[in-house]
Structure formats: C-alpha cells, structure tokens
C-alpha cells in the first residue's frame, strides 16, 4: 500500500524581495586542531510567507548558519566575505545595540528543547511578556493581556493560568507553545526554528508542527526551519535546502527534492529515512513458531523508601514503571515495542534483562522466573541487551578486544587461545575491520561503537536480543545502516529480537509484530501489516497519524 503524500503546505504569494537573504556566506572556527570550515559559501533566500527547510545531519553546519544570522557567534568564529541580509538590511554591518533591537523584534528563534531554553526560576508569563515590554514598549499590564492573547493563539486552553506557571509546572508541549508564542510576539519578519520538535514526544511534536504551519500561514512570516528529519521537512516546508559539511548541496521546492533528488548525498539521505513501505525483513513468521519468551502479568515498580522516611513512617509515592504486561515472543521474531518516553517500554526491557525488580513472571522457553533474584547466568547468557547510547554502554577504559572477549570468557564459549580469532570474527560480523580490536571506544564513531555493542550482544549466541532504542542516538544515515546490520544478523542467526523504539516508521520497516505501550500498559499488539485495521487502539492510531513519512516515495 502506498500512502499519499500528506503535505500541509499551501501555496502562498511570493514577494519579489527575500526577507532573509544569505549570499556566498562562509564561516570558519579556529580550533586547536586548526581551522574548521563550518559554512562554505552558502546561498539561501527565504521569501515572505515561505518556509525554507534546512536539512542536514549533526555537524553539517545548519545551526551555525542560524547563529550567524542572529549574530550570535562564539569568539573563535571567523567570517568570510558573504552577506547576511534581513529585508535588505545588512546584518553584518549592524552595531551590537542595533542587533539587540533586531533580535526578538525582527527575527525570532525557537529552540530545540523548551525545558532548557526557558528560565526555570521565572514564570512563563514573565518570560513571554518581557519581549513585549522590551520591543513593543507595552506596560506590564498590557503585556500581560497581550501575552494571554498570544498564548491563546498557540492553542493553550487557559492562557491566564499558564502565564503564572513556572516551566517545571508545564508539559513539554505547553512550554514549546510558550516559546513559539514568544517568537511570534513582535510579529517578526523572520523566525528561525531550530529542531523545534526533536525533544518532544511524537504526538506532541505533531501538534506543534501543525501549530507552526497554522501560525506561519496566518502571519506570513518567513521561516527557516532547521531539522535533521527529512520526512518532517518534506511535510511542512515549501522549499528545502540540504546541507552537508557546510555546503548546500541541493536546494529547491520540497516536492522536487523528494521526488527527483539530483545530489548523491540527498539521495543517500532519502534512502536512509525509514520508510514503512520498504520492509527490511522479508521473512514471514510462521504462526506455528514456538513462543520463546513470555511475560505474564509482569509489573515493575520504582521508588524505594529511605531510612528517614521509614523512621517517620511517611508514605512515599510508588511509581509504577509498567503494569500487568503479558505477551509472548515467538522464536525468530522481531517484536517492535513503541511508545513515547515514559511509557514503560524500556522498563520492560530492563526487567527482561534482569536489571529491574519485577513481580509476575518472565519465562524463557520452559524456565519461568518470578523475581529478579532468581535470574541466573544461563538465562542472562541467552538474553542479551543493547542500549541506546553506545557512549555509555562501552566501558571507556577497555579496548574493543577486551569488551568483546568478556562474554566469551564469562560464559566459557571459546578456549583462551581462540579468543582473538573469535573477536576478529565478531568484528567481521558487524562489518568492522579486525584492527579495531586494539582501539578504545573514544576512538570510534557513534555508529562504530553501536556495532561493537551489537557484536558484544551477539557474542554469546543468545536466543533473545533486546534492542533498546539502539538507533535513536545516531544520525539518519548511520541509523539505517545499523538497522540493516541488525536485521541481517537476526536473519542469519535466527535470534529473537525485541526492538524498542519511538520511531514508528522504523519499527514498521523491520518488525513482524508491534506492541504499543502507553502509560505503563501494553495497549495494543498486532501484526505489522494490520496497522491500519479498524480494531486498532485509539492511541495506536494517533501514533501512526502523528508521524509523517517521507514525501515522494
């Protein structure tokens, strides 16, 4: 089944003169290791009423461009020739005082993470109204009223109350709405959105994106929308520029870029975007395949009373990480588990791998365990876990060889003399050269580290591998290759896989079945192909709808 491109973008009238015009702009950072060219001769224009999507991986220079436009560069930045024009005004020629006047009034910015970009000690209202007081010379009272109106426009239901709250009293979505309201507060000509939804949950992200499109449409502001997410950008931007190592490699209308990319890098990027319509796993799991791992009414609670609390007999809130989870995983299956952060999906993985206390039953084949303490080494050998962040999961003080040799020694899998050969074999399995064995983790890239982590998990030839968000800390292109590697390994070894992720597109590409977690409960479990079936849980449907798929595929 092929989905329609669901573009929200509506065509809008075009002014002749660009609001934001970047021409032949270059930027270099002087570092100890020598000069680093962050931006190379960048040309970019954003017209009024248009959204320009700027897409690139981390380190591509996309955020540097935002800082350059806002004239907020670190001391070690050296600018080249080029021009930065805001409605024809040369930003580079402005004095610091003039720039202060322009910021917030003529150019707004929305950051990635509202929880760090809002001051925790000031009320949301104060942080919104201070812009109005500063740039629109409103009195505090007027600013208060105007602030409420602005908040109302961003879809906050009780704006007056929200104004009095502190950041920690608001949800991530509410906070980002406040930030957006602040950016729009002075009707700026241009707003830069720097990954505004990356830190948010899928559904909230979707709402914020919709809000963005609506506000952009209403105000006709020129928007520069920075993101690593091609699928997202294809949905909300009129035009797209792809930036790679400081260079704009391709730009043009969204539709054109996605349907007919000309540049190799763009093509690679497009190919790497998880597309649920391109299955990575071709095998179809037979219904007769035996259940290898079984959870029965498994509940995981957090929170331990401390000594003083116990002395004073005070009640402490118990946090339930996951409750009454029951499902079975069949041999050779890839079971996807999706849910937003805090939904309990990782908690389950940690319980299965014997890291969290649980009640209920966890059973591997015919061996049932009713508490964490019962879990023994043979079980652990057969159930391996791979963590999200390879920086954290590899001991920085051990060489790759030692990291990979450890399970071999621990479970006595190969004789001491055969360890080196086996390590080499394991590295080859994850497509890493043999000489990596001598390296330390910090000498590897993120993708390479995650491959080592995968190799370690597969070293003990386990029956079940738990993959806890193993691709989410990686760049898009690396993500795809790691996912492919995992699927290949899984297919070759017939290992059962629990693939935990928040990326519903990715999971649809590789899972046989998908379990949906919501607030500690498993609300849905279905065959991947049945995702559109009417009996799907309401939350599952919301989740599926919230996530854009790449346009043009």
């Amino acid at each position, binding site marked *: 089944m092929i989905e329609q491109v669901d573009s929200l973008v509506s065509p809008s009238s075009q002014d002749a003169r660009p609001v934001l015009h970047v021409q032949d702009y270059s930027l270099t950072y002087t570092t100890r290791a020598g000069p680093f060219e962050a931006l190379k001769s960048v040309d970019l224009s954003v017209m009024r009423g248009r959204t320009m999507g700027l897409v690139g991986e981390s380190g591509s220079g996309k955020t540097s461009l935002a800082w350059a436009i806002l004239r907020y560069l670190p001391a070690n930045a050296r600018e080249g020739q080029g021009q930065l024009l805001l409605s024809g005004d040369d930003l580079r020629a402005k004095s610091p005082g003039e720039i202060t006047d322009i910021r917030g009034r003529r150019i707004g910015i929305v950051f990635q993470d509202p929880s760090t970009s809002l001051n925790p000690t000031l009320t949301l209202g104060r942080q919104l109204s201070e812009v109005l007081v500063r740039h629109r010379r409103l009195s505090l009272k007027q600013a208060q009223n105007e602030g409420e109106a602005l908040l109302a426009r961003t879809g906050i239901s009780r704006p007056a109350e929200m104004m009095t709250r502190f950041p920690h009293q608001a949800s991530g979505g509410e906070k980002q709405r406040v930030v957006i309201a602040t950016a729009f507060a002075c009707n700026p000509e241009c707003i830069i959105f720097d990954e505004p939804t990356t830190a948010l949950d899928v559904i909230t992200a979707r709402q914020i994106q919709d809000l963005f499109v609506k506000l952009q449409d209403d105000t006709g502001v020129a928007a520069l929308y920075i993101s690593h997410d091609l699928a997202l950008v294809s949905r909300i931007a009129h035009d797209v520029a792809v930036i790679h190592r400081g260079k704009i490699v391709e730009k043009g209308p969204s539709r054109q870029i996605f349907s007919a990319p000309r540049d190799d890098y763009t093509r690679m990027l497009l190919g790497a975007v998880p597309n649920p319509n391109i299955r990575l796993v071709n095998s179809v799991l037979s219904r007769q395949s035996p259940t290898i791992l079984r959870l029965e009414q498994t509940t995981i609670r957090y929170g331990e009373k*401390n*000594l003083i609390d116990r002395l004073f007999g005070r009640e402490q809130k118990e946090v339930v990480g996951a409750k009454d989870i029951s499902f079975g995983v069949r041999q050779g299956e890839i079971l996807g588990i999706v849910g937003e952060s805090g939904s309990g999906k990782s908690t389950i993985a*940690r319980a299965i791998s014997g890291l969290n206390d649980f009640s209920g039953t966890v059973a591997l084949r015919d061996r049932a365990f009713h508490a964490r303490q019962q879990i023994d*080494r043979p079980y*652990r050998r057969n159930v*391996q876990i791979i963590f999200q962040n390879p920086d*954290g999961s590899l*001991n920085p003080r051990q060489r790759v060889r030692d990291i990979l040799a*450890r399970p071999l020694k621990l479970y006595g899998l190969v004789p001491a003399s055969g360890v080196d050969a086996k390590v080499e074999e394991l590295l080859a399995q994850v497509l890493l050269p043999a000489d990596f064995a001598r390296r330390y983790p910090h000498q590897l890239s993120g993708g390479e580290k995650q491959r080592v982590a995968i190799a370690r998990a597969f070293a003990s030839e386990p029956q079940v591998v738990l993959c806890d968000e193993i691709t989410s800390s990686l760049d898009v292109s690396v993500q795809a290759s790691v996912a492919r590697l995992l699927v290949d390994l899984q297919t070759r070894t017939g290992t059962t896989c629990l693939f935990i992720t928040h990326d519903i597109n990715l999971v649809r590409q590789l899972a046989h079945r998908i379990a949906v977690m919501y607030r500690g409960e498993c609300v849905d479990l279905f065959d991947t192909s049945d995702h559109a079936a009417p009996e799907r849980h309401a939350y599952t449907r919301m989740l599926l709808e919230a996530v854009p798929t790449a346009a043009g595929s």
Partner: protein
Amino acid sequence: MREILRHPTGLVGSFLLALVLLAALFGSWLAPYDPQLFHPQARLQGPSAAFWLGTDQFGRDILSRILHGARSTVSFGVGATLLGVAAGAVIGITAGVVGKWVDSLIMRLVDGLLAVPDLLFTLLIVTVIGGGSGHAMLAVAVAFTPGMARISRSAVLSVRTREFVQAATARGESRLYIMAAEVLPNSVGPLIVEATIRVSFAIMLGATLGFLGLGAQPPSTEWGLMISEARQFMFRNPWCVAAPGVAIAMAAMGFNLFGDALRDLIDPRGQR
C-alpha cells in the same frame, strides 16, 4: 600531561608543583647549609649573599630550612590526603556497592561527621591521640575521611548507573568483577582530582596545627611550624615569617591549580 600544560591554570599549577616537588625530593642536596646549623653571629638577618633568604633566631639559614621542610610539609599533605582518601574510598565504595541499609547507615554517619568543621574535628582528634607530626597527619586524614567517603560514594553511584555497568549486570557478571573492572577504573578520575585539591587543604591544616602547637614540633623544619616559631621575631626579621608563608602559599596553590586543571580535563563541562 601535555593537555594540562596547555591549560593556563594547569601550566601555572604544574610549574609551582614542580618547584615544590623538586624541593621535596632534592631539597636536602640543594640546601646550602645544614638546616639545624647555628650561626650565632648572624641571627635574624635579612637576605644576603651568604644567606639568600636570611636567618632565623638561632642564625639558621632560612632557605636551607625551607628546602628541607619541603619534604616534611609535602609528605604531610600528601600522606594525610592519601590516608584520608584510602579510608574514605573504602567506606564510600562499600556504601555505594552494598547499598540498602548499610549505605543509609554509613551516609548518616558521614553526614554527622561532616557537620563538625574540619579544623575542629582535627583538633579534637589531635587532643585525643596527642600532638606531633605523625598524629596530626593521622588526624587530618581522619577528618578528611567522611568527605572523601561521600565523594567516592557518589563517584561510584554515578558510574554504577552508566550503561556499561548495567550491561555487565545484565550479562551476569559477578559483583566483584563489576566493581573491579567496570566501576572502579571509571571512578578514580574524580577521586584523583579531589585528592589533589585536598592536598593543599591538608598542607594548610597541618600548618595551622603547627601554629596552634599541635602539629610538627621543633626542631622540625615543617613550614607552618617555622612561621609559628618565627612570629615572635617578625618585627625584627620579616623574612622568617614571609619566606615560609610564601612557600606554603606556593605549595597550596600548586596543588589547587593543578587539581582544578585536572578537573577541567576530566569533566570538560565547565569549559565552552
């Protein structure tokens, strides 16, 4: 090491530290005179060609005494710190590893001991076990122990939640292996930093004890004692107070700066 020398505070710290350590290691060879040798004809003199930093009330050469005193002063600071760190680390790591009520108990105890100011705690201990250099060192070590216990515990705990430790747990590794191979090698960094900075506190505490008559005793050349002995004569020859005072400040600053530079290297968060 090269990284530390690039760091401006690290450079100054290393320089001061090198000077002090040089004196501590080779001071007795470098000293122009026997530090206990009297020159009754040249008492309380200012700097001269014969006595570069002047002489004290017995006509002893101040430079020679400072060079000699470097070893006892530095070894006091380092010794007290090492003892304190070792004891604190054992306690803190035990608390961090065993957890549960043992942890609660130890940490409550540590909190209690931390509520007594360092100097007072040291004084109490010295009063119990008696003064003198060795006892004072022991007292400073004991006074450092609760603080170090808390730091080692938190270092262990912060490593313990790291995923590679969890990976080891999930693998079914023994507690001993996890501690020895996974946790400890990654916790020593902050401990080393803290220890380096504490050496400077230990030197100052030792000097203060010397001043109160409870630390090193005559005829030791420990710097704090030199100052307290010379205070009576400071109006007649300010050098006999100033020279060891500067020496203490150099040593304390050296360890302090070096430790801060180490901290910045290990935890680059503070830098932008």
